């Protein structure tokens, strides 16, 4: 990989990163988008449908991924890690490592012949480990780029993939490659992780197979999910009683996560509605402390869910244990009528919250807020500016937010970034000269 210059380096290929990159590239700025995963799409690509419109998620994400891939002003750098960053006179010099795919990205056509030939099955992280894929694979059918990647840690080097590849793209000898990008600005969109399923021991500490995280449920609801339908992972039963435990990973000082994660109420309600569609006989209960459906159209969404028969019970679930049928039993006080009950469900979804993705913040030497997300010193004046001039932050890297807010935040970061570039031009290449206008 050659070194090259860009106007902006966007870190993170989730929805916020893609939107920021597109908004900047559309204005004519040379943009590089770097992601440590072998495909862009972030967390959003693994979701089923999105609230409150219930659009299918891939209908929103995949075209954006495609636009990013085809945009003449965007250079896509997948499966790359940031190594270091140095301030230079015209911005930043960023060293990036291209991790070896063991597949020549230029030769690979994404035909997946290698994948079908590979004998090893490994847990598929895009299915939260509940589905499987092979040690060499295209991450998922809509991945961008459609390039296979080999997991050397789970490879027996049998060479079958190499043999079957029609374009001789498999190269076991690839090595990490380091290259440098000279950029004038950086947009950090490194996203979030779920609070770990294991964090709260009262909820089984991740050991109960039928107590799952919400992204698992997203996969069950997505047509491309591991089972192609909603089944509980403990024994493949189609659940008839499903419970959501709200604030299972937020607003809980016993976990060290004190803030509200902002999206859990809505995704729980959304999933409840989708489950009602997929399993019309299922009873769905949402245990909550406060329902926070604050966004545009969200309150109506909540009321619709109530009308559909989703049961809302105010009370923080204190503990979950398993009965001898693998059924999770929740213990909760129904605070509205003051009774303590133990209720048995087939499946419990812990509405886990958001914690910042580890990584980039440290390399960029950005200070963190009390909540460990990137600190934004002047939220009421410059909501996307970090403490370092020329580095902007957007999306869930700066705190929990939903997709709509992430997209708006991304566009706003794009505006801040382009304003910064224009203000610090130093006689360097400005956006591409405009074409002569054509009159109708």
């Amino acid at each position, binding site marked *: 990989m050659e070194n090259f210059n860009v106007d902006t380096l966007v870190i993170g290929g989730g929805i916020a990163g893609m939107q920021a990159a597109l908004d900047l590239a559309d204005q004519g700025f040379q943009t590089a988008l770097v992601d440590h995963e072998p495909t862009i799409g972030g967390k959003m690509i693994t979701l089923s449908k999105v609230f409150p419109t219930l659009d299918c998620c891939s209908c929103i994400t995949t075209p954006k991924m495609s636009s990013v891939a085809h945009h003449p002003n965007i250079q896509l750098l997948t499966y790359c890690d940031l190594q270091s960053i140095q301030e230079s006179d015209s911005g930043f010099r960023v060293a990036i490592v291209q991790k070896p795919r063991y597949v020549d990205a230029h030769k690979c056509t994404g035909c997946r012949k290698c994948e079908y030939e590979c004998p090893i099955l490994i847990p598929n992280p895009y299915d939260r480990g509940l589905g499987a894929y092979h040690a060499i694979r295209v991450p998922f059918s809509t991945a961008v780029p459609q390039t296979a990647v080999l997991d050397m840690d789970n490879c027996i080097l049998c060479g079958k993939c190499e043999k079957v590849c029609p374009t001789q793209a498999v190269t076991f000898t690839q090595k990490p490659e380091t290259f440098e990008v000279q950029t004038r600005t950086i947009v950090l969109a490194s996203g979030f992780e779920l609070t770990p399923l294991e964090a709260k021991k009262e909820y089984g500490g991740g050991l109960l197979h039928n107590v799952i995280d919400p992204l698992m449920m997203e996969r069950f609801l997505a047509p491309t999910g591991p089972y192609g339908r909603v089944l509980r992972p403990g024994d493949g039963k189609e659940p008839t009683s499903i419970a959501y435990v709200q604030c299972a990973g937020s607003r809980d000082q016993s976990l060290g996560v004190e*803030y509200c994660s902002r999206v859990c109420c809505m995704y729980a309600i959304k999933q409840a509605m989708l489950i009602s569609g997929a399993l019309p006989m299922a009873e769905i209960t949402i245990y909550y402390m406060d329902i926070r459906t604050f966004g545009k159209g969200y309150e*109506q969404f909540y009321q619709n869910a109530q009308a559909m028969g989703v049961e809302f019970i105010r009370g923080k679930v204190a503990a979950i244990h398993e009965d001898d049928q693998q059924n999770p039993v929740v213990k909760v006080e129904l605070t509205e009528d003051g009774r303590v009950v133990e209720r048995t469900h087939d499946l419990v979804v812990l509405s886990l919250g958001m914690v910042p993705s580890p990584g980039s913040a440290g390399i960029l030497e950005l200070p963190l807020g009390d909540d460990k997300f990137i600190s934004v010193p002047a939220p009421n004046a410059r909501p996307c500016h970090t403490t370092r001039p020329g580095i902007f932050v957007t999306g869930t890297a700066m705190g*929990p937010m939903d997709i709509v807010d992430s997209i708006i935040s991304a566009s*706003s970061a794009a505006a801040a970034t382009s304003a910064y570039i224009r203000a610090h031009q130093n006689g360097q290449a400005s956006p591409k000269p405009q074409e002569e206008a054509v009159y109708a």
Partner: protein
Amino acid sequence: MPEKKISNNETPSSEKVRVGVYTCHCGGNISHVVQCERVAKMLGKMPDVVIARTDPSFCSDSGQAVIEQDIKELGINRVVIGACAPSLHEQTFRNTVTRAGLNPYLYHHVGIREQDSWVHPNDPEGATDKAIRLMAAGLAKARLLTPLDPIRLKAEKHTLVIGGGVAGLRAALDIAHQGIRVTLVEKSPFLGGRMPQLESVFPTDEEARQLLNKLIQEVTAEESIKIITQAEVTGLSGYVGNYNISLTQHSRGVDGVTTEALMAACTQETPDEFNYNLTQRKVIYQPYPGCYPPTPAVDWEHYDGKPLQVNGKPFHLKDEPHNIELTVGAIVMATGFDPYEPRQGEYGYDQIPEVVTLPQLIRILSRIPKGEPLTWNGHAVRDLVLIHCVGSRELDGVNQPQADGQVNNYCSRVCCTASLHTAIDMRQRFPNLNIYELYQDIRTYGRGHEEIYRRAQNAMVRFVRYHGTELPEVLPAPAGDTHPVLVRVKDYLTRGKEIEMGVDMVVLAVGMMPRQIDDLVKMLKISRGTDRFLLEAHPKLRPVEMSVRGIVLAGTAQGPMNIQESLSAASAAAAKVAVLLGQGQVELPPFVARVDESKCNGTGACVEACREEGAIAMQTFKENGREIRRAVITPANCTGCGACVGACPNRAIDVQAWTLGQYEAMVDAITMEIPAILENVS
């Protein structure tokens, strides 16, 4: 998108039509109901269809690649895609087709999600049948498609920002930073909107006016921003890239020289809106010290017209409104919000003097000097109740509808945090004050907001949880009670026990209502949602754009937001404007009327039928020595509504890509009996 070359737009009509038909599963949205494979199989048997495929999602990169490949390898020259609504991905597929070297208008999009699978979830058979018909109709149309070119127009690199509140100011500044000229128009005589009425803002506890002044300074320092106050949009024509705007600006009424004398001479008073009518101000006024512009202005609406006595001489204040015309490429709607005004008697509002709204309380608090106790209505306030969700989260059948018959069933997003923030402030300033918050759910969702909730708890603010179906009651206390007002509520943290609080002041945390901008909405032909706020084109694909191209949204005109969110939305709006106007040109779809010269004999019916200004006109041509009157279209002004098509007695006008011939073919295909379709196939 920057220069996308449109090539191969000269597909000769004689060329053999080769259609590719693609039925999308839409990630299950369609395939869960419609048997897509069957649709594809049926369509595959129809004439001219070269290939019929299905895919989990054609909009994905791999899906698009399939289509591209077919065009290149199978020589497909017409593309029919059955998928979601065209509003979502028509553009996506246009780009796909273009990339493959085909004219983008040789592709037709059939909405079999919104029009079929979503509306017939319980009738898979019927839905599949319907999908086949819709697709067959699409195919019939696609056969008749001709290559078209988009209309490219020079775009004015100039933006109109309507509204001088924090969102408007931010949007103006960010747009100016992208090298685009801005005219900021504000209805009132002063900038700042609602923000200066706040004191300290959460979560940073900064001074609202200080923050705002910084922003105003930046805006006023920017040469490419022109600020016009006391002005309203009174006329609008044109289209994206070239909107012609008429503004009417009122006089400020005072000029620099006599300002102070005039202010001194002015005696007429009127309720001060800045303090939510709690106080009086003169009709010549500055809302607050340090406002911008600093020059006072005359409140023409309330001015009684009587001359002032200045230095013993009568002085007449006169409003001489004048018009300003400008051409802009885009419009930013930053018209803001109004606090919900409770109706008389709602929680005792406007009946019991102890009942005020939260915005009023903030003004009241700002007027109490440091160290002095809180008094209201002539007595010390020891106990105070804040009621949440007033004018928000209302329920049909529980809350009384407003004048327009609606209830505000949305959440206003900011009131929870604002109430708690104010409560903390009060507990700090008046340590003996006891505060109750009556809430349904505490929605401190934002970054640092939960911390505010915690601070309020640590400050011993009391919380009482009511149900939206059983609202609290505010009553005057019987004589001899320790407090003037009683608040009764069923507390759902105490098993619904009915409790009562004696209080000295009741504060209603009122929600947000959109500004009254009916005229603008009509003029711009933009849409509002059921909540009456302005409606974005799509909450995720185009969250700050309206469906009318060139009009973008900033701040609370779109829905309740706090300051930080307004700023973000405003900056996002600026980014969209920059993308739209940055290239200096815009592309309009070619779906405009076209006159078939051979058929037009100049009846003029089309001109009469046309609703757009300057879209169609009669012109006289000399042909073979004869003078012929014929209709001529100005594509830029035509919206493609088709009114002229219906009016023409000679079928001489058609809308491009939506011609009568195409419609007829579609209708024939859609009404064909299924056996007939099959026959047709065999």
